[in-house]
């Protein structure tokens, strides 16, 4: 990435799981048809603990998203809730496409996205 002999030390960037998860969560929420992200039990309990203890963390939420960075690639799993009236197949594919594009633009990683629709709310 850097030219040898240019006098510039090579920069090695490592993106953490949390960065990938937060970027993925932000993008997933913007896909039309996604009503909410569904936190797993650990995330839900942490969120409740935070709100009871009055910790209003100004961080971006990554609830409902799991991410693992492995070298140059990242595995992302997103759990979403939708509303009746959106085609589940098309929605899942749109989330996969848009989250992968956004995370990969932000982190330059090769991203694979797994989507689970946990619930479909009545219209």
């Amino acid at each position, binding site marked *: 990435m850097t030219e040898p002999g240019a006098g510039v030390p090579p920069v090695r960037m490592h993106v953490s799981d949390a960065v990938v998860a937060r970027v993925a969560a932000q993008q997933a929420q913007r896909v039309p048809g996604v009503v909410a992200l569904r936190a797993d039990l650990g995330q839900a309990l942490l969120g409740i603990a935070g709100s009871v203890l009055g910790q209003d963390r100004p961080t971006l939420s990554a609830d409902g998203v799991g991410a693992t960075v492995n070298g140059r690639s990242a595995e992302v799993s997103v759990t979403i809730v939708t509303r009746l009236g959106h085609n589940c197949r098309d929605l*899942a594919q749109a989330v996969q496409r848009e989250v992968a594009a956004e995370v990969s633009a932000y982190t330059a990683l090769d991203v694979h996205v797994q989507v689970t629709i946990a619930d479909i709310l009545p219209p």
Partner: protein
Amino acid sequence: MALNPEPGDLPADARIEPLACGRDAALVWDRAEAGTPPDEHERACPHCTAAFADAQRLDSVVHRMATQELEPPSSVMDRVLSAVRTELRPHDVLTLPSPHGPARVSRPAAATVLRHAVDRISGVWARSCRIEQVTAVESRAVDVTLTVTARFGIDLTPVTARVRQLVIAAGEQALGIPVRRVDIHVVDVFEDGSS
């Protein structure tokens, strides 16, 4: 202070300085917390008095916070229950066709969608809805088994044909999964006015 390692195990800079009068501050704190009245030296020594007062101030703050009533937000129950439900059945899912990798939808949620489609027909109510995915088929087609109750006196043949039609349409339009077979069991009849 039983958990403290021996002073010899600590690096030199981590060792706690004794108070200016030579007493160990930790011992003074321990005695203050235990409610032991200050001894003769502690009453006279300004360093020990200060340490004693600090310990009591901290103690009172801790007690005040411990007695405070915590008000959990009203959404706690909902959030925990939905998380528990998601956690309990992580594998009860149908696979959605997708070129981008694994995509799935919760089987109970998909069944709710199909039951909802059936309930739009007047004269029948859906009861149970079982969805089995045919894994061997590339299109991810499903077989649906429904139990319904029908209004007494209704002609079952056209109604079940309509149920079948709507389930297939809902599978394609709402879920995006082709329905290969629909089995309908009429398990009961109801009278008008009751449901």
